[in-house]
């Protein structure tokens, strides 16, 4: 499918940090994406991990933090996406979220920031985690 032959002019040189929200429940995605925008982040949205990879591979888009659900339909779940990001976009931070306790245990090994955010999460906790991760990344 063809893409618009344009690019996001604000992306280059913008000081806004960019967050990619990956969530298959549209109303959850809408709420957290809206909240993050109000907090001053540029936010892109993906319905599943495959869409997230397409956005991350897009030359027009630069992503600082991926905030992803673990349980998603499709061939790749949130863990798979986290592994893909580690392998292909090492400068991009990952935060996972899940409603399942078992996933929370496994994700601790994948996320630098410790255990993942359990659903339901307060929106402010997401912002706090993003700030922690991006501050940590700047120190390296």
């Amino acid at each position, binding site marked *: 499918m*063809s893409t618009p*032959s*344009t690019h*996001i002019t604000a992306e280059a040189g913008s000081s806004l940090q960019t967050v990619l929200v990956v969530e298959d429940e549209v*109303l959850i995605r809408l709420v957290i994406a809206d909240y993050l925008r109000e907090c001053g982040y540029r936010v*892109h*949205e993906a*319905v599943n991990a495959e869409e*997230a990879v397409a956005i991350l591979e897009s030359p027009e888009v630069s992503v600082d933090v991926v905030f992803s659900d673990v349980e998603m339909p499709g061939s790749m779940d949130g863990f798979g996406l986290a592994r893909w990001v580690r392998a292909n976009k090492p400068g991009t931070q990952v935060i996972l979220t899940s409603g399942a306790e078992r996933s929370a245990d496994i994700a601790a090994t994948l996320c630098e920031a410790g255990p993942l955010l359990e659903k339901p999460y307060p929106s402010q906790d997401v912002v706090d985690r993003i700030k922690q991760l991006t501050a940590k990344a700047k120190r390296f």
Partner: protein
Amino acid sequence: MRERTASGARMNAASVTALPRRTPPSILVVEGDARVRCLVSDELRGSGFKVLEAGSADEALAVLDAVRIELLFIALDLPGSTNGAEMARHLGARQRAMRVILASAEPDRPGDPGLDDLGPLIRKPYLASQVVDLVMRSLNWPDPP
């Protein structure tokens, strides 16, 4: 010509244009290609619109049930059981007040009175800036001074 307001303050053209405008219109971008959706939505946000995103007709319906949308920008070639054309027809009957812009991946798509009456059609590949222009014209936004 200057006029005095009830409070005695002088009122002129400059003070009128400085008044806050109405809340930016909400636009729902429904597009199955995440990169296209991302670029179009970002360009619209950069122009001051409030933009919500949906990747399928089912997602769009969930958003429309929860949020008041003033303009629907919908691709006709959506993935899933309901394509954009079917959804646009459904919504045309349901929400007459909402403006609709259709996006087609078929360069030679024949006219369809059932769809063409809903709103303008833009053909892919398009520039995101062309979408913004079309949206601004459809919504008469920003308000003329």
